[in-house]
């Protein structure tokens, strides 16, 4: 095989103030190869990909495209070479339709009709189902991702970069995505697949480059490895499964929700319809579902950002709190961690100590008649940092300066160390590296073991199945009947989650027709 690799990186380094993000990274992707780029958060995956896509320039080293050294100055240059990228966070305009959104992302201008024809062609070829005239706000997350894929495919890429593509998909959607990717690869398009979901990589990829601390630590064939062995290469130590001791879920009911209904907060939100469930002390209750089915609305309704109609709709340890705000509910022992870390769970421009004041001020007693006891907050923040092994300079570091995983550990620690009777968390390990995720899971298990009731809202089924005692699925603002984890299969859950294949098709069609 003397064919030049599609893409080759030789000794590429990139330094940021204070960190060497990539340290002489070498990597080569053959034509038609599905190549995994694996690593914990902060291992340097994003930086590397940004250099390939022309968003950042390497400090040293060279990038070879089909055997020739190139300098990729900006994303437009990358696209012209034939590099396409599907980002983890979509950049779509809610109020526009699919076609308009794709047109906006193209470098040249194409007539609407011609573009429509091209889109349909690409979708047919790769088995992607999507109506180009539908408005974004009516689409599921899986469908939104398909737009990004179509947008990239329209340019006939010879290398497609996918950044954590499955974190928002149902199991069925993941299967469909894999089919598309295999189809693409069979036609000679190389794919650089970034993920830390190890079993997906085992299933999909032919080669994997594993990064740790900005360096390549291994290159392997995932088909010859197990998820566990790759995970250990990734974090550089033994991977420990969270230990769930003998669970007895016979405690008293600590959180009770009865017929919680709320109108949609805005045009793009989801209304909650008659949600009822109970969680006992010591129990971990999971809520699965595809993003955008009312998870955020439910979390905000539970933590008190949106009030219920009646005080008795939500009860904590028998005390009605439905009409109390977040502070009132915390006093009753209901703490929460929303999905969005920066800007919701924490304030990036504030220090960690100030972020402790944000939610822990009354429970931890550093609020006194309207005055703040700064020393108390510093002490508590330092305690959280130590107990939860948060990598940071200290309580005075800005929350925004922490990596995603570290900030998540801090935020989780901040709530858990307030010893809440009820803890509601959304996406506790979203975008968090494997090591931190295991740590957070263990912390939740330990909290439950101390008798707290825990609600975990997550799109990661593996996480829920590993962690929870009972599960429900939220779809279009409605909650399915809770079932014990042992009784329910992944396929069943996938169907309940609906997404673009199940019940939601009719409803979404209804919205579209209206």
């Amino acid at each position, binding site marked *: 095989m003397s064919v030049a690799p599609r893409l080759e990186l030789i000794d590429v380094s990139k330094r940021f103030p204070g960190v060497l993000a990539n340290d002489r990274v070498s990597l080569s992707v053959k034509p038609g190869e599905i190549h995994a780029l694996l690593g914990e958060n902060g291992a340097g995956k994003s930086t590397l990909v940004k250099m390939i896509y022309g968003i950042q320039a390497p400090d040293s080293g060279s990038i070879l495209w089909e055997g020739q050294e190139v300098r990729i100055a900006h994303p437009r240059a990358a696209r012209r070479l034939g590099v396409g990228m599907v980002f983890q966070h979509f950049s779509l305009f809610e109020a526009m339709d699919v076609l308009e959104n794709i047109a906006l992302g193209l470098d040249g201008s194409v007539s609407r009709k011609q573009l429509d024809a091209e889109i349909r062609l690409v979708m047919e070829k790769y088995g992607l189902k999507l109506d180009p005239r539908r408005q974004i706000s009516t689409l599921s997350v899986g469908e939104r991702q398909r737009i990004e894929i179509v947008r990239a495919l329209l340019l006939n890429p010879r290398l497609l970069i996918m950044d954590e593509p499955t974190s928002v998909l149902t199991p069925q959607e993941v299967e469909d995505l894999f089919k598309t990717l295999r189809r693409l690869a069979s036609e000679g398009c190389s794919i650089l697949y970034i993920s830390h979901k190890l079993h997906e990589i085992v299933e999909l990829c032919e080669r994997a480059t594993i990064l740790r601390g900005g360096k390549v630590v291994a290159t392997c064939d995932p088909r010859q490895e197990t998820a566990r062995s790759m995970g250990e290469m990734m974090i550089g130590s033994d991977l420990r499964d969270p230990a769930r001791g003998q669970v007895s879920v016979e405690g008293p009911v600590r959180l009770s929700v009865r017929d919680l209904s709320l109108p949609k907060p805005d045009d793009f939100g989801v209304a909650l319809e008659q949600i009822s469930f109970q969680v006992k002390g010591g129990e971990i209750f999971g809520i699965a579902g595809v993003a955008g089915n009312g998870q955020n609305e439910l979390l905000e309704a539970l933590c008190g950002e949106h009030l219920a109609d009646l005080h008795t709709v939500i009860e904590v340890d028998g005390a009605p709190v439905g009409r109390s705000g977040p502070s009132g509910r915390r006093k009753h022992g209901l703490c929460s961690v929303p999905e969005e870390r920066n800007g919701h769970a924490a304030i990036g421009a504030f220090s960690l100590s100030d972020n402790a004041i*944000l939610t822990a001020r009354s429970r931890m007693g550093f609020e006194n008649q309207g005055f703040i006891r700064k020393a108390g907050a510093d002490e508590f923040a330092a305690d959280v940092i130590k107990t939860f092994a948060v990598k940071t300079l200290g309580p005075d570091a800005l929350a925004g300066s922490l990596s995603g995983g570290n900030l998540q550990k801090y935020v989780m620690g901040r709530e858990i160390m307030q010893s809440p009777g009820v803890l509601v968390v959304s996406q506790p390990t979203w975008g968090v590296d494997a090591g931190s995720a295991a740590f957070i899971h263990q912390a939740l298990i330990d909290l439950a073991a101390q008798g707290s009731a825990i609600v975990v809202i997550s799109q990661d089924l593996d996480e829920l199945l590993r962690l929870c005692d009972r599960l429900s699925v939220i779809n279009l603002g409605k909650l399915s009947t809770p079932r014990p984890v042992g009784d329910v299969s992944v396929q069943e859950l996938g169907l309940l989650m609906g997404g673009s294949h199940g019940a939601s098709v009719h409803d979404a069609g209804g919205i579209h027709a209206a």
Partner: protein
Amino acid sequence: MRLRLEKRLEPSRTMLVMTPVLSVIAIMILGVIIFDGLGYDGPQAVWELFFTPVLDVYKWRDVASKAAPLIIIALGLSLGNQAKIWNIGAEGQYILGAIGAAGVAFVTQSMTGFWIIPLMILVGMTCGAFYAAIPAVLRTRYGVSEVLSSLMFVYVSLQLLSYLITGPWKDPDGHNFPQTAQLTDAQVLPHEVWNSGILPGLLIALIVAIIFYIIVSRTVFGFSVRAIGEAPHAARYGGFSSNGIVWATLMISGAMAGLAGVLELMQLTRLNLGFPSGYGFTAIIVSLLGRSHPIGVFIAGIVLAITYVGGQVAQTVVHVPNATAGLFQALLLFAILASDLLVRYRVRINVSSPPKEGQRS
């Protein structure tokens, strides 16, 4: 070689403090160029404008008397700034404060007593606060931007003032001039505090600055204001009501503007058509130049007061037009807004030539 902007990981604290200073220096240089271009003696104009008021002891009193209302109003505004609630109508609340105090003065004309002055201050602050509450209602109930509504209520207050001084409150002994009767001795503060030479207004400004410093850095309320400004969603999650903060910051800044109005009335001793001085607008620049920090606002208030006093000096000495002070204040506003870029970005100078281009754009 080319210049490049690179986003900083964290906003630079040094630049946060340095940019206001750089802005002042930049407009001095700009002023020299502009006035030279217009045919005046540029360097001298800038000298008279910025340095004469500082070096001439006799001008200090003028500077202080102008700095006090600017500082007091700007402190109130800076609280709102931190919550990203923009009260542009401080001028109106300042006028309402003076009207409130003048109303008390009107009723107590023939009375004496130590209680009159505190009552004037209290009524003036209350009037300012309630005048600022109107934009708060409009914002929290109907979603009307406080930037527009607060500004428009300035014009309403001007009409109210002119109605009162030409109608019901007109001084009967005023030879038909549109003005109120002069305040009595029981209605004005002494010229200086305990014969120390310090203006009572400046002392009050200092006390207010200290109180605001404590509020912002030590209280849960101050924390909530900063939280709302930085991340409204997180603040809500933290248990703070954004409507509550809108009400509080607008009414507090209204009360401060009202207080400044009362003190100014006591200094001028009567209301007339010349009373609206634009302090409420200039204070917006003061709060921005002072980075909404009590110490910064105090210094910025003095700097802006210097441009007022220096503008008059430059007018008589170098014969520049009387709009000069306003020109410099506007330039300063632009300079400070533009220099904000340096807080979030660093300027990189690329000297090395790029490596060979495989791919040309």
